[in-house]
Every structure is written in C-alpha cells, then in structure tokens.
C-alpha cells in the first residue's frame, strides 16, 4: 500500500493522521493519504511568494517546454508517488477504483490533460490575446502594436479546492505554472491521483519543487486554502457557488446546467441532431459540468425525449475495466440514494414524466457502490422544478418551451449549444449574460475548444490590467 504524504512546497510531510483510499468495487485499500491540519496550511503560506519568485527566474518559454515534457511524462512514464512509484496503467486503475469512473474514461481524461499541456503555448497565446508572455513576467511592457501595457499578478499562488467526482477539471489549473504562479492544491478525497502525479511530472520536467504544495484533508483544509490564497478556484454545488458569488478572491465552479436549444427553424428535423443530443448527455457518464442536462424546444419534445431514452435508457452498469462501460459508479455511500430520492420527489409534480421508466430501475445497488442508470425526463413546461435539475450521471430533461421564452427561462448555463439559424434568436443568445460558453449550430456541449476561456479567463482572474507609466529606466 502506497503512503502518500502532504507536499509542503515539494517537501514530503507524512502526517500523524491518514485517510485510507479504498477501491470502490473490491474494498482493497490502495493508499494511505496523510491528512494535514489547517494551521499548517496557513503557516506554509509564508512561502507563497517564494513559489512565484522561483518560477519567475525561469523564462515562460522554458516553462512551456517543461510542461509539455511534463504532459508526456504524466501520460507515459513511471513516476514517483509517495513512497512508491506509479505507471500510467496503475494511475488509470487507481483513479477508476476510487472515483468510480470506468477505466477507459480515466484514460481519455489522461490524454486530454496531456493534450492541454502539449498545446499550452497556443492556449496561453489565445487566452492572453497574443500578448508577449514576458510582459506577465515583468508586469509591464509594450504590445506589438506599440501600446504600453501592464498586467499585475494578483497572487503569488493559486489555491485549488478540487472535486473527487470529475477528474476532467484538472485541465483548468494546468496553465498556472507556465504563468509563473505557484499552485496550492487541496485534492478531492477520492481523487488524490491527478494532483500528485501531475506534480511529480512537473518536478521531473524541471519545475522547481517550491512552486507546488499539496494539502489533502477535510473541509477545513479547503477553507484554509481559500483563506490563505489571494486567488482560489473551488468546485462544489450550487450552494458553494452562491456562497462565493461576488468574492473577487474566489472563482467558484458549480453545476454547469449546460443545455441544447432547438430553434423553431430546426426543431422539425430534430432526428438529425439525435447523436449530438445523446453524446452531450451520456459521454463521460454525464459527470462533467459541460454535459448537457437540458434539451429545450417548442415542439416534438415528448418524441425527442422518447428517442433519447430509447438510445441511453437501456444502458446497464458494467465492470470498470470493460471498455464498453458507460456508467460511473457512485462511490460515496448514500449519494446515489439521495439523488434518486430527489428525482422521485420532483417526478410527483404534474407535467413531469420519466421517459426511461420502462427501461428498468434507475438505482442499482452493489455491495460497495451504487449506480444510477440514464434517466430522461419530459417536462411540459419550463416552470416545473424538474426543469432546473442537474445530476452527476447521464440525466437530462427535455423541456417544452416557446422559443421566445427560452433565453429568459433557461437560467444559468455553462455551455449552450443553440441549433438555429434564426438571426433574432441568435442575437438574444449572444447578448444573454447568463450563458457562458455559446455554441451556435449543431455542436455537442461537450466539445470544447481549448483556445477559448472557460467560466472566465484564468488570465484575467490572476492578472489585473492597469496603467503603468515611467520616465527613465525601470530596473525591476
């Protein structure tokens, strides 16, 4: 069994308290992860500035090469992990074993992270709109078109309170190191694997150890990270997002409520878009915030729901190592029961119909984990409570709503794929501030262009554009 210590700016620190990370299917203890205390995290932040200082000593161009190499190491090499080592296949098995994601999905997420690291130069170029990256290092400079600019780093480190259920989110913090900002990571209890493996790959690729700290622990550690870091990202539910709304120090990522909208000009050909709709709901076991949880149209909604249900409704849980396995297990006790109960309660409202009911029981209970089978619900109005639901499994509502009410009624939407050529409808969507990523045309919600910002630009979050004038030399 691997012992995984706390990483205090790269220095291993085995704690007095440890949490066992257990295989959801076999009960095997895969690792013991040290659990840190909150005051230690806060005290370590004395060295936060050092993290940025050591990174600033390395040109961003060199850091980009390092993270590219780190991506390859992460995907292909046997890397140190705690008091042992870990091959890529062991990583896949361990991540699957604790998060419940089928192994082929873990492998896919690994490739995704590698892709992002390998293309980091292009990603940063697009996120900074072609800025000379040395300006981020210096804090000031002259743009190519001759305009003086200044970008002031708002925090020497970025705190990350990471989730357990969606290993895909790690792509969000991969651009941080090349921007010469340190990382303070609090892993999700079931997913310590990616932060540790990525840190190991970064170190092997030449990133200074003092640039990364990893603090596993309970909820108080998440709070300590948020309290100590001037800029942090946190992942949680709607309540978490509400709690940090308007807090400039925290960017909260919650449920996506991503949707597909079928315009009146296209809805009569809905069958053409069935693959896009099913993929958006089902791929990655519906766990991501970019998975579609609502399909909205003004007509044919019952038929659309029926067709999606016919496609994904019969899917059964399969062992995690089966390449055809499409459903992730719920490894946290009682979580699946809670979700199932919530759905059943919402189904009692008039105008709501479970279109997947005929394909068998939704909740499948196993000895050490549970599954929720794909669920498609028809809502005959956007005003029923069910129309606002989202869960971390293949679940979607198909909502009947007049097109001219959609923008108003859809609510916060991370990814909106609008299948329409209607100029007025398109304009309304472009202007809607509650839509984050907007796709116009038949595109699955899960198809991301990595060169585009996600829930706000991470560059804008970490660097503030400001005026900077000087007469005479600036030597800093």
């Amino acid at each position, binding site marked *: 069994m691997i012992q995984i210590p706390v990483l205090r700016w790269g220095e291993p620190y085995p704690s007095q*308290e440890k949490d066992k990370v257990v295989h959801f299917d076999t009960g095997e203890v895969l690792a013991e992860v040290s659990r840190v*205390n909150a*005051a230690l995290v806060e005290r370590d932040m004395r060295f936060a500035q050092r993290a940025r200082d050591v990174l600033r000593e390395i040109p961003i161009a060199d850091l980009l090469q390092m993270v590219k190499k780190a991506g390859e190491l992460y995907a292909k090499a046997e890397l140190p992990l705690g008091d042992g080592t870990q091959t890529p296949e062991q990583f896949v098995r361990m991540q699957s074993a604790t998060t419940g994601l089928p192994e082929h999905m873990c492998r896919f997420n690994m490739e995704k992270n590698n892709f992002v690291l390998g293309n980091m130069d292009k990603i940063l170029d697009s996120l900074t709109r072609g800025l000379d990256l040395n300006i981020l290092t210096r804090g000031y400079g002259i743009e190519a078109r001759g305009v003086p600019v200044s970008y002031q780093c708002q925090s020497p480190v970025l705190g990350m309170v990471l989730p357990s259920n969606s290993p895909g989110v790690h792509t969000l913090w991969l651009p941080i190191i090349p921007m010469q900002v340190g990382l303070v990571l609090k892993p999700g209890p079931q997913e310590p694997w990616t932060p540790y493996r990525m840190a190991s790959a970064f170190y092997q690729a030449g990133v200074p150890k003092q640039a990364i700290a990893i603090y596993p622990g309970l909820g108080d550690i998440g709070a300590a990270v948020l309290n100590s870091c001037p800029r942090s990202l946190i992942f949680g539910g709607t309540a978490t997002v509400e709690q940090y709304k308007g807090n400039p120090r925290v960017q909260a990522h919650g449920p996506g409520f991503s949707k597909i909208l079928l315009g009146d000009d296209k809805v009569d050909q809905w069958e053409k878009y069935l693959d896009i709709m099913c993929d958006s709901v089902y791929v990655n076991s519906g766990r991501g915030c970019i998975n579609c949880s609502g399909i909205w149209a003004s007509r044919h909604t019952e038929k659309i729901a029926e067709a999606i249900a016919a496609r994904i409704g019969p899917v059964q849980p399969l062992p995690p190592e089966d390449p055809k396995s499409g459903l992730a297990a719920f490894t946290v006790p009682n979580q699946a029961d809670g979700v199932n109960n919530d759905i059943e309660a919402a189904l009692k409202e008039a105008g709501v119909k479970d279109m997947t009911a005929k394909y068998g029981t939704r909740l499948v209970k196993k000895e050490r984990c549970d599954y929720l089978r794909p669920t498609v619900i028809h809502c005959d109005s956007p005003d029923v409570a069910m129309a606002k639901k989202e869960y971390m499994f293949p679940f979607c509502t198909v909502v009947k709503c007049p097109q001219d009410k959609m923008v108003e009624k859809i609510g916060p939407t991370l990814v909106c794929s609008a299948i329409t050529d209607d100029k007025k409808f398109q304009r309304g969507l472009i202007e809607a501030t509650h839509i984050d990523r907007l796709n116009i045309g038949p595109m699955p919600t899960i198809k991301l262009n990595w060169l585009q910002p996600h829930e706000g630009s991470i560059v804008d979050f970490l660097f503030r554009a400001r005026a900077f004038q000087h007469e005479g030399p600036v030597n800093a």
Partner: protein
Amino acid sequence: MNLSLLLGAIVKDTPGKPAPVTGSTLDEKIKNAKTQLDAQVREVVKWHFSPATGTPFWLEKAKTFDFNPLSDVNGWADIAKFPMFEDDWLRGGPVTRWVPKGYAGRGVYVFETGGTTGIPKSRIVIDDFKIDYEMFSDTLPEKFFPKNSNWLMLGPSGPRRLRLAVEHLAQYRGGISFCIDLDPRWVVKLIKKGWTEHLKAYQEHCIDQAMTILSAGHDVRCMFTTPKLLDALCKRLEQEGSSISKAGITGIFCGGTEMTSQWIRFMIEEYLGPEVYIAPTYGNTLMGLAASEMPTAAQNYKIAYYAPQPRAVAQVVNFKDYNELVPVGQTGRVLLTTLTKEFFVPRFAERDEGEREPPSEKYPWDGVSGVRPFHEIAAQTTVGVY
C-alpha cells in the same frame, strides 16, 4: 513587605476534593482506585436518591426504575443498572430540579453548553468546578506552570464553566487570570451563515484582546486556550516577530474541539518548541476535566486522556452495545459517568469516539485516546466553534 502579598496567596483545597490514589505497584494502585470508585458510587447514589438529601429530578426518575438505587447500587458495576442519560433532560427549567435537597441554601451557578438555537442544556454547580480544576491543577508540572504566576484565559466567556474554572485554577495556584470576551454562539452563527470574513474578523478581535493583555505588563506565564485560538495567537505573534515563548508563556492548558495528534505535533514542532509545555484536556460542562500527559514524538504524539476518577469515569464501549467495553487499543464510543454530590450523570454517550487506553502509574484506570467526533454524527456537527 510580606512576600505572600507580592506572590499571591495559594488557595486552600475545596472540601470534597478526593485524596490521590496510593499504592506501591501499578496493580495495587488499580485495585485501590477501584475501591475508591466503588465507595464514591455508593456515597453519590445514596445522596441523590435519599428523600432527605436527594435531587428532585432523580427522586422523580427513580419511580420509573425497576430497581431501588438505595439498596441495589453497591459499587461501580451497578451503574449499568441505570438507563442511559439523555442530555435533553438538561434543557429548560426549573433548573432547581437538579439541586440536591442536601444543598438547600447554598449559592448555585448555572453553566450552559452550546445553545445556538433553542434552549441550551444547563447544569447546576456549587463547588464542582473548583474541585475539578484543583484536581487538574495537581497534574500540571510546576516547572512550566509556576505557582503564583498569572494566566491568560483565551477562551469562551459568558455562561460557561471555563470562564470561572480557569479563573479559579489561576487563583488556586496563587495567580490572577486575565480574560477576554468571546461569544461562541455568535461564532457558530457566523459559520452556519458562511460569513467567513466576519468569522475571521471576530477571531482577530479575540486575538487583539489577547495581544493587549500580553503587552500590558501583567507577567502572564500560563494560559488556557483552544486549538484554533492558539493557532491564531501563534500566527499573530510570529507576524510581529515574537512567539509564545518570547511572550513569556511557558505552560498552555488547551482544550476544545479539533485536538488531534497531528495538530499537537504541528504546534510543538513549529510554534512552541521545547521551552513550552502544552497540556491537552478533554471534557465538557457535564463532567470534570480529563487530563493527558504532554504528547511526545517518542509516543507518536498520542493524546491519551484520563477522567478525574472517582468523580468521573470515561469508558470506551462497543458502538452496538454500550454495556460492553471494547478491548484495550480498540475503538468505541466514549461513555461518560459523572459522580459528584452536586451532579449525577450515569452513562452519557458522548458525541465522540476513540481508542481504549490501559491504566498508567499516574492514572491507574482506563483512559481514551484518539478522541474524534463519533462517526455516525460527525457530519451533522458544527465543530471548531472557537
């Protein structure tokens, strides 16, 4: 000038303080401790259930028992005959139902627990807090908690035992206690509302008060505090180029939630160093104070608490059967029994679990280590109040 005026007078023992257990071997001490506990059970049960001296609550409750406490309780083993104590019995009035008739006419304090919403639980006290803290005082090493030195009470104020008890502890040892204002009920509200900025500000407000006391020339050498507040005080002192040791404090009595081996190791290794002694304690308003030796690296920073027998007993029992002690070293729920003439609490299931510890030379009875929130209710509890 009379030296005692300068140093302060050592307060005499409060009547009722038990004599220390004697014995030349551990086995003999264990045997004598059992004898002392059996005698305490007989005396206390007789007191609370006799018509002349009894406690109205227990006299009434006894009518529902299928045994007679006066004739059927002859020692510790018979405590198992009592039903589990329900702390909800302590909510609301009249609080006088808890005052034994034998103490009619005595001044009574009321100490409350929790109480963020609804009616708090309360218990009556006459001298118990004094006796409990005098017994605890006897466990403190003189080198680090010098007699006649002054104390900082950096903990909750208001209707809590700690405020008066720490003050009595300081006075008993010949010193004076300097206190701060801290309302833990407001802190719980801040946590529940998610007002983290306010929470931080309130903590800063408490630390400001402590820093003022420490800077005011009161020659403070000892203190009571909680883990969170000690974290915050150490951090502030460090930011100001000082430390606990540089501030003159040599002994810390620390109690409250979130006392873990990791925390104590962190505190010793990174803030306190070898010149400061920290005495972890476990207890609540219902019982006395369970003490612990200072945890050490050699013992892997294990914190083993021992209740102040014979006035209170801490057992570690099977999660499924509270009548069954778990074997030494095994995990179970903490079951407390308080046995004083002021307050009788048989078999109260604490909201904690831990491992059963064997008797030691200093404490020749069972102890409990690794105390943490009981796993079945941990998720529902707001911890880290102050």
